[in-house]
């Protein structure tokens, strides 16, 4: 059983190696290798989860030298749950969009696409498990470049512009993060999260270097907020999500930005300590922007006439929810935010893939006017879109409803003013969500005779159907068995710092 302890290391190294090997493979082998890799990592992480549930969390020394000198990763309940979940979403996204990857990307380059997928998984796992700020930064770099490549691999004008926008914004974020880490290292002399936390406590007792600490915290928070597209920094998001190939959209919207948010959790809980964060009122700022994002994202989504842009703008609103959860500055709020990371990931990647399936049977139209009645032509994609939309709106039994309930519960335990604002914002945002999602659902289920389409010859890609089915089940699972996951998150969060 002890071999399980090594699995996180094996996973990361396996992903890196598969990424390198994929670069010399053909497109088909690279795809198979990639899917096999994600599946293997998924099962290994389940083993890690079981191990952690039994034995409790542990730190793992990377090399012959213990932590402050060498590198270290730390495996706890929360990390393992998130890792398992991320692998599942990634597998389904790649599987669901696999048919379109072959269509959208040049043959000679599509093996490199899978290289990017493998390295993206490596970086996500490293971000989840790392216990060292500089290691986190190195893998943030890999993550950023891989995400840029995933956006532009489709190689048309739109994606190139989108990738350029993404790179500029994201590199600003990376730069701020790096400056923040450098300042933190300068005043504490450590890069290991736990040691920084110890030094920060000493410094706040003696009152030294308070300004650099505050600035470092601000820079890291803003940097990660830019990278995860919190509301005023969302300008790169709609293009990047809506024009890239559906697998990329799914992975970007549900995993990439969430990886950064998880890193932000780590920085808050493990590096600075939550009391320090509360003292400096960072959560209030995040709360404000989160609420603004919830409303503004939904309002902007209402104006869209393009299905995939609508889903992308809805992501802005959902990121706002997550930051609002952190901003409530109660532990239940963080639990709700983490649960929402999962429920949003499960619904959003499904929506992107279902939207592609729907536009596939409507002559590649992404506009609403062309999508009339698409739900009848591609039934499974229609149902998946319905489930995803209902989940985002918050219909009971689906994932989105549960996370909204958790947000409301968390708001009840928060301070008065925050409770009122959060409740009102939740209500307004839910109504706005309903306005644009229900409208989209009505359109795809409006009976419409579509002449350019032959129902008898069209076969939806098998892999997409399997992936959509799994996504629907995952959504219902998250909605109905949420207690199980919430419990795991609670225990994980208890030992997180």
């Amino acid at each position, binding site marked *: 059983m002890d071999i399980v302890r090594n699995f996180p290391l094996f996973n990361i190294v396996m992903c890196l190696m598969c990424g390198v090997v994929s670069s010399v493979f053909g497109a088909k082998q690279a795809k198979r290798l990639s899917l096999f890799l994600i599946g293997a990592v998924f099962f290994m992480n389940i083993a890690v989860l079981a191990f952690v549930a039994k034995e409790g969390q542990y730190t793992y020394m990377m090399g012959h030298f213990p932590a402050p000198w060498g590198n270290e990763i730390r495996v706890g309940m929360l990390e393992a749950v998130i890792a398992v979940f991320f692998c599942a979403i990634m597998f389904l996204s790649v599987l669901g969009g696999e048919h379109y990857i072959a269509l959208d990307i040049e043959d000679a380059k599509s093996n490199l696409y899978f290289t990017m997928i493998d390295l993206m998984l490596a970086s996500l796992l490293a971000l989840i498990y790392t216990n060292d700020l500089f290691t986190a930064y190195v893998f943030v770099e890999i993550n950023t470049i891989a995400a840029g490549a995933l956006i532009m691999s489709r190689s048309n004008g739109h994606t190139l512009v989108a990738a350029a926008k993404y790179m500029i914004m994201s590199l600003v974020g990376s730069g701020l993060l790096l400056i923040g880490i450098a300042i933190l290292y300068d005043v504490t*002399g450590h890069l290991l999260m736990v040691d920084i936390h110890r030094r920060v406590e000493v410094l706040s007792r003696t009152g030294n270097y308070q300004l650099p600490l505050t600035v470092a915290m601000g820079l890291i928070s803003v940097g990660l907020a830019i990278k995860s597209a919190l509301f005023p920094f969302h300008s790169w998001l709609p293009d990047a999500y809506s024009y890239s190939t559906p697998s990329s959209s799914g992975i970007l919207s549900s995993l990439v930005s969430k990886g950064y948010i998880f890193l932000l959790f780590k920085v808050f809980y493990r590096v600075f300590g939550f009391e320090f964060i509360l003292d400096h009122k960072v959560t209030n700022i995040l709360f404000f922007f989160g609420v603004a994002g919830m409303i503004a994202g939904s309002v902007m989504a209402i104006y869209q006439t393009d299905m995939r842009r609508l889903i992308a703008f809805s992501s802005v609103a959902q990121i706002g929810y997550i930051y609002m959860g952190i901003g409530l500055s109660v532990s239940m709020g963080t639990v709700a935010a983490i649960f929402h990371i999962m429920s949003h990931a499960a619904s959003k990647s499904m929506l992107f893939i279902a939207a592609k399936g729907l536009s596939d049977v409507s002559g590649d139209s992404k506009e609403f006017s062309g999508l009339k009645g698409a739900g009848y032509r591609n039934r499974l994609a229609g149902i998946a879109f319905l489930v995803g939309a209902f989940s985002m709106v918050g219909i009971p039994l689906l994932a989105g409803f549960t996370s909204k309930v958790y947000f409301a519960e968390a708001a009840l335990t928060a301070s008065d003013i925050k409770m009122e604002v959060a409740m009102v914002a939740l209500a307004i945002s839910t109504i706005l969500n309903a306005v644009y999602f229900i409208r989209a659902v009505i359109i795809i289920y409006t009976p419409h005779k579509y002449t350019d389409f032959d129902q008898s010859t069209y076969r939806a890609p098998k892999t997409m159907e399997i992936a959509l089915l799994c996504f629907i089940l995952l959504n219902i699972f998250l909605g109905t068995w949420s207690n199980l996951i919430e419990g795991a998150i609670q225990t994980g969060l208890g030992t997180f710092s």
Partner: protein
Amino acid sequence: MSKIRPDYEMTKWRRFLRFVNGEELPEDWQKRKDAARAIGERMEQLEEERNEFFLNKKKWRASYQKYWKEQAEREYSRALNQYDYWPDTKGVKLFRRFYHLISALICISIITVLLVTVSRLPEFGSADTPANSSEVVDRYIEKGQEETGAVNIVTGMILDYRAFDTLGESHVLFIAACTVLILLRIDHGKDGKPTQAKLAAEEDDRKFEPKNDKILQKAAFFLVPCIIIFGIYVILNGHISPGGGFSGGAIVGAGLILYLNAFGFEKAEQFFTYRTFSVVTLCSLLFYSVAKCYSFYCGANHLDSGIPLGRAGDILSSGLILPLNICVGCVVACTMYTFYAIFRKGGI
């Protein structure tokens, strides 16, 4: 009847319907609106004529009404125009000015905050700063040579103490090269043969390349071997003297680029093709990953890795650091050369 209304497309109900159906504003709505308005005007005119004919008494009243109606319509259309074109004319200007102002303000405030922060940081270079006096640095300096076998403690640190970071860092180079390949590579079409774009690029390259420049070639003839040998020296002595894989690889890469510039792609392709790039990076990175995975595994489970450290200062010493330096050097050199070649003509 209501569909003839001049502003039918803009009525609340119609806009709502359009929103629900996801339709766009019909392109010819302006034309339709004009036509509808013309019909309306004509009807009014007819009605007026009739009024004039039958109700001569009320003539003054009709003309009065007509005057006010026209006035109102003119006002309405002017307002509509202003509303429609405002964002394109005045709005853009205003927004630009506002945008410049705000970005200047944000820049200045960020610069101020950062400068103030820097002035509050511990004094640079002083011995008792937190970074210089922590136990981490002490152990690197005092025990570094003994524990890693590398005289150059920087190399010992990046390739032994914190090797996981460097593992990530070398993959950053690899992924950057792959991204540039995805973005710019044009020498492979769907069928694997050179595309038209590539042929055009080659043609173009020849036009601008100083072909057979004697001075450049003679200079490169002497310089390139020296540069490459120096680069290899830096890589191989990374654990003994300043340098290492990253710097040595950059030097070798510069030598290759100089060779390419002097002798052209045809000669360079004799020893460096896409295949070379992929084989070299594949072998180096795979060896790096496997070796480090083994070393991490042994370290974490407190096993003896069985890799001898050797005598510090020897060329064959310090365990895995020398082979890892060679790997990193290969990856860096290949990446640099690849970047240059791809940016120049979209292929290697």
